[in-house]
């Protein structure tokens, strides 16, 4: 197994994990629609709709 590289984790991976929360701009060093593409969920997926339908009304409206 490749040994854990803390510098790689801190300087390369951690910024990418943080950038995943920001839908307004591509991760630093990447260009939107050229080297960075949004991963978009499909809430219309039948499995998701079925799960949401099973939730109690309170849970469904919870913010």
């Amino acid at each position: 197994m490749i040994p854990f590289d803390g510098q790689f984790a801190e300087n390369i991976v951690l910024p990418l994990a943080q950038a995943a929360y920001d839908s307004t701009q591509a991760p630093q060093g990447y260009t939107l629609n050229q080297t960075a593409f949004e991963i978009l969920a499909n809430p219309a997926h039948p499995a998701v709709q079925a799960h949401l339908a099973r939730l109690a009304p309170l849970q469904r409206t919870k913010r």
Partner: protein
Amino acid sequence: MLQSMFDQPKQPQRATSDAAVRTLAADPNANLNFGWFCLDKPNQRLIVAFRGTEFIHDWLDDFDFVPAPYAPVPGRGTVHEGFQLVYLAVRDNLIALWNKYSGGYSEILITGHSLGGALCPLATLDLLNVNQNLSPVVYTWAEPRVGHDDFVTFFNTHVNVCYRIVNVWDVVPHLPPDIAQYEHEGSQVTIDSGFSLDVVHNHVLGTGYVPGMAMWNKDHPLEVTRHFGTMAVAALVGQVR
């Protein structure tokens, strides 16, 4: 739990240019963006980065332990149903991006925080099933337990590089509890951001993991980190005093 993943985050969602994808949105207020798929051309590496939920209290309140068979690769184990449903909601788009852009790449870095970390093993085995020549490198942050023993064994057999970075004060990596038969995959790297009673403080990347990772690196100099494997072997054969 699932609902909290689709709630709108603080940052406004940028409109996508892909009209076909936009029409899939049943709820106009739902947050469809689950992260980024990137091409690291200089290093010939693909990157998948998943976000977690910004509503951690709601997520913890709604947490359940319901298991389900791993759907993308039938017969390969049992996983948390809620995590899998979130993954299934992003799977079509992820596979489409993979099919469109992965040509010529052999390594993929998959990362994510919190619930995004839980999506990492689910996506890794799915992408491996699509392309068995892929070399995945998985780094997760504050990842909860995702699967039962059968899934974890399958994962560990097929994924050589998987590190789970865990803040020692964070409660999320302890969920679902092992009494519910959920286990962790990969190897854990424990960091210490400093004690706090605040659950969110300990869990959030900026307060729980950025300082904790910096402290870890301060305590583990680069040369030791990078050559730890070699040093261990050398020590075994008596070449290191």
